[in-house]
C-alpha cells in the first residue's frame, strides 16, 4: 500500500452503513456471513439489466454479444484476480457451496471403497456434507484433521497418525476458518496431498475476500469462493480448477449449454468450463462480481489485508478485557483472519446478539455452519464478530462496550430497564 488506507472514504461507497438502529448508528460486524455492497457494484448490475440484458452464448444479436462480453469478461477478471493460468479454468456456480459440491460430485467419479477423503474438523458444513455424501455414494472413507486447543490445524497429529497416505484421493481444506479465523498452511498441506497423488481442494470462501490470492502459490488443484463475501452479489460463486483436472472430470448438472451433442439415446459434453455450467448462468451476478473485483483491486488486496490485520489485533485486545469473554481460536493476530468467535459466560449467543442488535451492532450467534468444530471445542454455540474493509476502530469500541453491558444485563448486575445505555 502506498497511500494510507482511508476507511472513511471507503465507507462513503457503502450507503447501508449510514443506517441507524433507533438512536444508534449501524455497526455491521457480520461480514464473514456476508459483506455489504459498494454503490458501484449495485449500479453495474442495474446497468447490465437496463442496457445490456440478454442471454449469453446462445444469442448472436447485439444485446447477446454485449451480455456475452460482460459475462466472459467477468470470467477473465476472476482468472486474473486469483492468478489462474487461463480463464477456462474458472467455472461459475451459484455460491461456494455449489462449487464444493461440484468438486465433490465430480471427484467422486474416481472414488471407491478403501479410498480416503480428508477434510478438517474446522470446516464449514459446505466443505463437510458434500464429501460425506460423496463417500456415502462411493464407499470411500471420510477422515479429518483435528485442531489444537489454540485452534490451529493439528498437522503434527496428522503426520503422526498417517492421516494423508496412499489411500488418500482428495484433501479438502479451508484456507481461512470462518469461526476461528485461523489461516491454514495450504501450500504445506497441498505438498502432503501431492506427495500421495491426491487432489488438493481449497475452500477459499473466507480467504479470497481477505487476502491476495494466487492459486499457483497456494499449490492447490481446485479452489472455491463465493461472490457475496467479497462485495459482490448473492447468487454467484466460483470453482477454479487446473484445466487438465477439469478436463478429466464428468459433468455435474445437466442441461442447457453444457453439452456437445444431445441425442435421446445419449449425450456428449462440452469442454470446461462450459461442461459444468448448466442452464442460464448468473449473468448479471457475474457482471456484479466483476465490478466487485475491480473495486477491491483498486483499494488493493494488500491494503485490505493490512487494514483487517490491524483491526483484528485491536479487537482481540479490546475483547480480552470484557469479563467472562472467551475467544475461540488464536488470541494473537498471527496467521489469522478477521472473524473472531467468542462466548460470554452465562449468556447464550442468541441473547448476546439480541442485546447487541438493540444497540445497532450486528454480529452472528450460533454454530456458524461449523457444528463439528463447536463440538470439538466443547461449546454448543458461539458469537462471532467479523470485520471487513469498511470496519473502523470505533466500531470495535462500540462492540466491546456493548459486550460489557450485555454481560452485566444478564448477570443481574443491571436493572433490566435503565442501566448505562
Amino acid at each position: 500500500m502506498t497511500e494510507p488506507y482511508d476507511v472513511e472514504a471507503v465507507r462513503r461507497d457503502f450507503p447501508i452503513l449510514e443506517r441507524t438502529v433507533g438512536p444508534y448508528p449501524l455497526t455491521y460486524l457480520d461480514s464473514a456471513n456476508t459483506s455489504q455492497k459498494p454503490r458501484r457494484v449495485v449500479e453495474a448490475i442495474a446497468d447490465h439489466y437496463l442496457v445490456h440484458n440478454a442471454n449469453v452464448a446462445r444469442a448472436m444479436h447485439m444485446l447477446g454479444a454485449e451480455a456475452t462480453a460482460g459475462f466472459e469478461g467477468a470470467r477473465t477478471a476472476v482468472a486474473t484476480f486469483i492468478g489462474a493460468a487461463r480463464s477456462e479454468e474458472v467455472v461459475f456456480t451459484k455460491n461456494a457451496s455449489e462449487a464444493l459440491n461440484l468438486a465433490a460430485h465430480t471427484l467422486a467419479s474416481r472414488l471407491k471403497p478403501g479410498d480416503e477423503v480428508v477434510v478438517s474438523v474446522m470446516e464449514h458444513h459446505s466443505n463437510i456434507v458434500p464429501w460425506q455424501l460423496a463417500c456415502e455414494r462411493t464407499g470411500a472413507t471420510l477422515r479429518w484433521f483435528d485442531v489444537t486447543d489454540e485452534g490451529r490445524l493439528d498437522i503434527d497429529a496428522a503426520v503422526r497418525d498417517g492421516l494423508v497416505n496412499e489411500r488418500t484421493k482428495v484433501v479438502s481444506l479451508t484456507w481461512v476458518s470462518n469461526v476461528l479465523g485461523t489461516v491454514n498452511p495450504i501450500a504445506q498441506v497441498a505438498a502432503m496431498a501431492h506427495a500421495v497423488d491426491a487432489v488438493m481442494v481449497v475452500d477459499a470462501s473466507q480467504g479470497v475476500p481477505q487476502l491476495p490470492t494466487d492459486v499457483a502459490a497456494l499449490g492447490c488443484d481446485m479452489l472455491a469462493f463465493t461472490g457475496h463475501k467479497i462485495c459482490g452479489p448473492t447468487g454467484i460463486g466460483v470453482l477454479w480448477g487446473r484445466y487438465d483436472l477439469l478436463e478429466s472430470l464428468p459433468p455435474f448438472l445437466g442441461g442447457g449449454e453444457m453439452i456437445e451433442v444431445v441425442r435421446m439415446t445419449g449425450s456428449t459434453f462440452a469442454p470446461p468450463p462450459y461442461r459444468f455450467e448448466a442452464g442460464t448462468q448468473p449473468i448479471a451476478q457475474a457482471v456484479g462480481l466483476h465490478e466487485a473485483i475491480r473495486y477491491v483491486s483498486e483499494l488493493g488486496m494488500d491494503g485490505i489485508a493490512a487494514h483487517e490485520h490491524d483491526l483484528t489485533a485491536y479487537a482481540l485486545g479490546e475483547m480480552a478485557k470484557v469479563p467472562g469473554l472467551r475467544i475461540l481460536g488464536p488470541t494473537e493476530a498471527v496467521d489469522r483472519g478477521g472473524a473472531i468467535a467468542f462466548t460470554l459466560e452465562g449468556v447464550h449467543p442468541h441473547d448476546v446478539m439480541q442485546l447487541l442488535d438493540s444497540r445497532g451492532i450486528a454480529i452472528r450467534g450460533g454454530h456458524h455452519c461449523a457444528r463439528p468444530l463447536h463440538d470439538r471445542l466443547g461449546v454448543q454455540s458461539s458469537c462471532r464478530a467479523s470485520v471487513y474493509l469498511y470496519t473502523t476502530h470505533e466500531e470495535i469500541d462500540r462492540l466491546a462496550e456493548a459486550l460489557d453491558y450485555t454481560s452485566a444485563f444478564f448477570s443481574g448486575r443491571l436493572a433490566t430497564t435503565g442501566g448505562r445505555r
Partner: protein
Amino acid sequence: MSVEQLYQEIILDHYRVKRNAGLREPYEVEVHHVNPSCGDELTLRVAVADGEVTDVSYEAVGCSISQASTSVMSDLVIGGSPEHALELHDGFQTMIQGQGKVSLDEDAYGDAVAFEGVAQFPARVKCAMLGWAAVRDALLRVMAGAKEES
C-alpha cells in the same frame, strides 16, 4: 419494541432459576428437540398418570428465551390434563406467531404472558416454541399409547 420489553424480568427470573429442570424418573416418554439454526437442544420427559400430567422434566442448552419458556411451560402443564396442555400449546403458538396482534388470557397463562413481547421478534419465535413443541410431541406420543425414546 425495545429489547427491555423482550427481556421481561419474569423471563430473566425463570432463566436464572429454572423450574422443574433436570431429568427425572419416572416418565412415560422422552423426546429430543433441536433448533438447527442455533443448535439449541432440549431433552424433555413427561409423566402422565390418571389423566394428569404428573411431571415434566428436562435438560436444555439454549438461550434465555427458550429456557425461560420451557420453565414457564412446565409450571403451567404439570398438574393439568394432557388435553389442557395441548390447548395451552395451541394458544401460546397462536400468540407467538401473531406478530403482536394476539394476547394471552392472563388467568390461564400466568407467567407465559411475559412472552407476548417475543412475538415482535420473529427470529426468536422458534426459541420460545422449543419447549412447547417438545411437550406437545411427548404428550401426543403418550396419548397414542407409545412408550418410546426418540
